């Protein structure tokens, strides 16, 4: 009986240590504070959008019809691919494969740039139609939601390029380098996930 109990507690112990070994906080506390704060702000924006929408539902539907769903879909795809490449880059960096990580980051930056270009075209198209952020309440939200997000992307792309370049040049990837990469990757994934909500919310919901 004691052997059985000993065995069971030994198994439990190993399981417990496995669990603690598995748990790893990506990035650090402060970046998560910033990310969760940002996500909380956007959540409040989304709820405000839904709230104001109910008052002027017809206006919102009409304005939404003027948006280009195809560009939005392609942009979603761009950001998803970009995020996936960042995941690949981080995996490679952890294994010390600097060049491979560099190329993945560069690819991610490329997709990010694609997003920026398409979004800029969309904004220009709207401007040509004389629509700006004060045209009506839908457009206030459209410009602020997509605009803030655009701003986040515009800051993220140079960051990815910086990572790509410094990975390309580095001979050895230290733990600090990996930690910095993790933080940047987290930021970029947040940018991706915000768009995953913004696109259906603004462009798709009937």
């Amino acid at each position, binding site marked *: 009986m004691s052997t059985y109990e000993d065995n069971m507690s030994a198994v439990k112990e190993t399981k417990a240590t496995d669990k603690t070994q598995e748990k790893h906080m990506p990035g650090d506390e402060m970046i998560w504070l910033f990310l969760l704060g940002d996500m909380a702000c956007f959540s409040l924006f989304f709820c405000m959008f*839904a709230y104001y929408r109910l008052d002027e539902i017809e206006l919102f539907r009409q304005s939404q019809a003027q948006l280009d769903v195809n560009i939005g879909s392609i942009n979603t795809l761009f950001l*998803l691919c970009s*995020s996936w490449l*960042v995941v690949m880059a981080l995996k490679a960096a952890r294994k010390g494969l600097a060049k491979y990580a560099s190329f993945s980051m560069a690819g991610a930056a490329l997709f990010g740039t694609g997003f920026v270009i398409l979004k800029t075209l969309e904004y220009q198209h709207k401007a040509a139609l004389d629509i700006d952020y004060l045209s009506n309440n839908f457009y206030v939200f459209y410009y602020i939601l997509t605009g803030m997000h655009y701003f986040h992307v515009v800051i993220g792309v140079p960051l990815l390029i910086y990572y790509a370049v410094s990975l390309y040049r580095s001979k050895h990837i230290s733990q600090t380098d990996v930690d910095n990469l993790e933080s940047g990757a987290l930021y970029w994934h947040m940018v*991706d996930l915000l768009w*995953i909500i913004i696109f259906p919310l603004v462009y*798709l*919901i009937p």
Partner: protein
Amino acid sequence: MLISIFSWVVGINHGMLFEKAFLESAAILILAFFKVRLVIMHFMEVGHAPTTLRLSCEAWVFVSCIGLIIMTGGQVQV
């Protein structure tokens, strides 16, 4: 695995038709937050993170999703 998630995710974007607009909105939002949760758990590696962080992220996903569905449904008077 990721590729299959991709193609599914992109395919689904092109709409289903429910009769009630509210149901369709809710479905679209639930799907969106499902994808978001995948990004958080797998891309951001929160699935393997310490419990407090994981709970905070799950809470954000859940509260945002439910909150947004309720707000689009017009069940809240502020």
